[in-house]
């Protein structure tokens, strides 16, 4: 009787686990179905290679290059800001900060992660954007730059927490060996600890980047939503995510525009999948 019970529980747990895989697969298939029919009537090359996103013109143009570039600009810039700051913070927390400061910082950073992105977007729109406009004398503060600042801020908790984890799990014996040879704290950190923690840190960075790529609300409020290829980081841009969110409500179901948005969703899905998969590979290497 106990055997039967065990068997049922095992099957149930297996089912729950499989369900997660099934959901992801279903989402992918759904996107595929809605998006692929789009490629029936619109060449995928024109889609991925086209510069102009004019869905409401006649005939409509669905080139997503400007959107991809928009997403890229914002993401890369955000990464450039968040990575050095995040890794340095993680190093500080793990290696230098005294116990009381460690706890304070970790709590604060976790709180940061809890702020809803729409709130961050709102605050950014109301405070950061005018500030950027005035300080840098730009026609508008709504730009890739402002977006990157806020997004970097949002990616920070992820990068810090996971990097700090990776740094903390570097075996004490390595540090001990370095100190016993007369290495200073900084020498131990950059010659031994950082290289040893690198896979974990890379995983943290990729996860942070993954979060940024998929970010929608904050980006919509701050980046200016101009679907063109930006000339500089201070130009307004439009990301793929913002496009879907902004235009989905206005399309006719089943229209080419509707399907085009799904196609964008498909592209996003694939990109995010690759990023997360890479992150996972690094993290698994780190855990070894």
């Amino acid at each position: 009787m106990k055997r039967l019970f065990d068997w049922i529980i095992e099957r149930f747990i297996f089912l729950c686990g499989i369900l997660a895989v099934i959901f992801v697969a279903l989402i992918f298939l759904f996107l595929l179905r809605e998006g692929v029919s789009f490629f029936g009537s619109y060449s995928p090359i024109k889609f991925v290679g086209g510069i102009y996103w004019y869905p409401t013109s006649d005939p409509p143009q669905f080139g997503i290059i400007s959107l991809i570039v928009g997403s890229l600009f914002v993401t890369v810039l955000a990464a450039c800001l968040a990575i050095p700051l995040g890794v340095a913070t993680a190093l500080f927390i793990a290696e230098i900060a005294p116990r009381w400061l460690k706890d304070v910082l970790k709590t604060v950073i976790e709180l940061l992660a809890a702020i809803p992105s729409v709130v961050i977007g709102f605050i950014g729109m109301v405070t950061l954007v005018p500030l950027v406009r005035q300080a840098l004398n730009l026609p508008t503060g709504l730009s890739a730059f402002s977006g990157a600042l806020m997004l970097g801020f949002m990616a920070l908790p992820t990068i810090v927490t996971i990097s700090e984890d990776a740094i903390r799990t570097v075996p004490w014996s390595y540090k001990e060996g370095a100190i016993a040879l007369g290495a200073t704290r900084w020498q131990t950190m950059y010659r031994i600890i950082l290289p040893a923690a690198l896979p974990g840190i890379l995983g943290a960075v990729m996860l942070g980047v993954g979060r940024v790529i998929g970010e929608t609300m904050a980006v919509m409020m701050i980046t200016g939503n101009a679907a063109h290829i930006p000339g500089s980081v201070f130009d307004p841009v439009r990301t793929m995510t913002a496009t879907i969110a902004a235009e989905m409500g206005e399309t006719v179901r089943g229209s080419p525009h509707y399907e085009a948005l799904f196609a964008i969703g498909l592209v996003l899905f694939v990109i995010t999948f690759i990023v997360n998969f890479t992150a996972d590979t690094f993290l698994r290497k780190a855990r070894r």
Partner: protein
Amino acid sequence: MKKITAAGLNLHYGTFHALIDVSLGIEPNKITAMIGPSGCGKSTLLRVFNRMNDAIEGVRVAGNVELDGENILAYRDDEAIDILRRKVGMVFQRPNPFPLSVFENVAFGMRIHKLARGRELEDRVAESLKAVLLWDALKDKLKRSALSLTLEQRQRLCIARLIAVTPDVILLDEPCSSLDPVATLKIEELMLELKKRYTIIIVTHNMAQAARVSDETGFMLLGRLVEFGETSRIFTAPQAKETEEYITGRYG
């Protein structure tokens, strides 16, 4: 003149009195063994000599410990302590090579203390590996990760790492505990070879090893140095009753 002397050394971990009035003198170019049951303080004593106890919270050290006549307990400045650790190297119980290549492991000390570069650095790495008898085995594999070596090779590598910075004293904290008997013997042979150039202090719970390898032996019990003297005398005619009981295996 003694290489290291300790006088009235007392160490507390918080309220625990770990070293009680320890006084001794270590002869240069000899192997001194510290023996005693677990928890007697021999590892703690070893770590006083390169100030590794500093990293432990709540540690208080009092007394006088001199290396070549200078009181190392008085060093307050980080730089002086880093230099001390160069002169007094430590090998640990579990071999702990860095997750770097064999070459970089040995080069590490020289790089951080800026002792050599380029060609000279390479030469010194080769010399250090030769001194620990790893050169022939690894000369074509210098770029290999140190983590791919056997335990015995790793321990030799850790010793090579120390030798590369030309220390005066080598501290070994139960260096053969993780090794099999054959490897242990080889490391002991290495130690006998090394004592010609360095002063060696080894902590071991293996009495036979102490008898085989050391010139002088100190027996510790519950934080005190009970007896200290020539190894052959300690093992054949110990003066203190506790020493005799330990050596004959009454407790351990």
